[in-house]
């Protein structure tokens, strides 16, 4: 009933959306892998980053791709500060408290944005917003292709950072063995904050890559974060490669099931995968045994 060309196009579109999902999931999985916490504020922070990109464009005509250079360091600093001065001290090291504090942050950020920007859905107009690239018989959206390339580039950069730099090594050391890392003289609170900052920086890049072809409103992050949770669980909590592959896969599932079931029911496919993975294999497909 659907021609192979249409299915193929849905798969490609899904891959491109999935790459940005992967980037969002990357931030989430990084924080989970090191701090062992689920950051419920991730979606709200993504919304905040998207509004930051939007505001820079409206106020100073900054191109969304250029705004990466501004928003990314800003969100790194924000994430660092949040973990160091709010989440860390407020939760007294208790997992359930961390869950509650990040939930509180998410309520605070989301509704703060609602109070400032109101509930209107906004987009930014860029001349290339609807550009397409011809690939054989297919027409692919240019901003989405850039999103794919950008996400993959960030994933590679992040991986290089983790493998090559001293800070990256320290992060991995803390993730593996917190006590041992402390005894080696690593400042764990500092590493935690850096990791949280990196997670937020991923969101900033994702926001800038999304904005040319997507919209923003105060609740937009929720939809993304549930997808990101699914990806993280699917890919294995804490696994960078898992997040990347999981993101691409979920993007495809969403796109194809949206084609077959319609937009609103299409999301069910994602949640069912989420629930099934949690119930049957909570360590994820690529995750190590818990």
């Amino acid at each position: 009933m659907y021609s192979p060309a249409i299915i193929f196009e849905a798969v490609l579109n899904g891959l491109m959306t999935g790459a940005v999902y992967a980037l969002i999931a990357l931030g989430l999985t990084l924080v989970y892998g090191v701090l062992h916490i689920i950051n419920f504020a991730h979606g709200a922070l993504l919304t905040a980053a998207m509004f930051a990109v939007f505001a820079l464009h409206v106020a100073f005509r900054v191109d969304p791709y250029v705004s990466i250079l501004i928003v990314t360091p800003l969100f790194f600093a924000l994430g660092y500060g949040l973990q160091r001065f709010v989440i860390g001290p407020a939760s007294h090291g208790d997992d359930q408290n961390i869950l509650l504090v990040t939930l509180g942050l998410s309520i605070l950020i989301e509704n703060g944005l609602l109070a400032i920007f109101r509930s209107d859905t906004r987009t930014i107009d860029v001349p290339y917003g609807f550009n397409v690239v011809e690939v054989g018989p297919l027409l692919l959206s240019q901003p989405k292709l850039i999103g794919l390339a950008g996400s993959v580039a960030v994933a590679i950069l992040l991986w290089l950072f983790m493998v090559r730099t001293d800070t990256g090594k320290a992060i991995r050391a803390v993730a593996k063995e917190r006590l041992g890392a402390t005894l080696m003289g690593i400042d764990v609170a500092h590493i935690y904050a850096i990791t949280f900052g990196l997670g937020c920086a991923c969101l900033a890049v994702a926001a800038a890559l999304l904005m040319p072809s997507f919209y923003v409103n105060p609740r937009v992050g929720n939809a993304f974060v549930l997808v990101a949770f699914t990806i993280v669980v699917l890919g294995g909590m804490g696994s960078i490669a898992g997040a990347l592959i999981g993101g691409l896969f979920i993007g495809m599932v969403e796109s194809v099931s949206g084609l077959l079931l319609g937009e609103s029911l299409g999301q069910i496919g994602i949640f069912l995968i989420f629930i099934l993975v949690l119930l049957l294999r909570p360590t994820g497909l690529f995750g190590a045994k818990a």
Partner: protein
Amino acid sequence: MLLRHPPFALLIGILTVLAGLPLLGLPNTALNFLFFVLVIALAGQGWNLAGGYGGQFSFGHAAFFGVGAYTTAILQVRYGVNAWLGFGAGIALGSFVGFVIGSLSFRAGLRGSYFALVTLAFAEVLRILANAAPITGGAAGILIKLDVAPANFQFASRAVFFWIALALVGAVLILNRMIEQRRFGAYLVAIRENEAAARALGVNVLAVKLQAISLSAAITAAAGALYAQYFLYLDAAIAFGPWISVEALLAAIIGGAGTVLGPLLGAGLLHGLGEITKLAAGRVPGIDLVVYGIVLILVVAFAPRGVIGLFTKGDKGGEPTSHG
């Protein structure tokens, strides 16, 4: 001690005082507010049983609220069932959904953050289904016909609704207090504090958790059914939206998780604070929720045992805080 484990006489006293409120000649807006606080308190009492006493943090109590609400609405609108029977059916089905979700997640060994995530996902699945299925009225929602008569669970006076809500909250207060004094309550707390140790001591962990989630879901479903009966309108975002999962959790945590009076106190404090904020800040959307978020963080940081914990310094150390 008095507030943490209130004697029955104190509970009855509090309920009597609250029951007198509508007799003060309050305007309808005030009664609306008080009714809403009680609905949130009831939903929070449900959350508190599994989350507060049992340590099973659900982020998806909207699933039970929504099933309770939609069951009674659909039975009345589509099948002409009596509203009171529908109310009972809503509670029963809500409880059953709690049992099913609990069975699946507890048998899979999901705890802590994972349990929070899976409950959230279940609620979202129900929300999307309710938004698409014809029987729920889809995105347009479902309207219960206005037909004011006690037999239809509809009353001209808001005070009657208030008293019904208060009776439900009161019944759960007393039930909670009884549970605290029985083995079941002790088992729940034992599981919260250390599941492995509880199992080693012979507690049937799965059975206790399943009883807790079923009862918890029934209570929150009652809140949903009551909501439907009062506002006579539902859509997927109201019934299954994340707002109610968050409200239920906030009421219990802020008042004092694992305490009898916590959810009622928490719901009252939060919404009181929300109203004051709205008065002070004017018609800025979301401003009351900004305050909720800040209060949640402050409570976790400075009053980890909730507002009630601030008044019960006496039994410090009697119940160690949970470890993840």
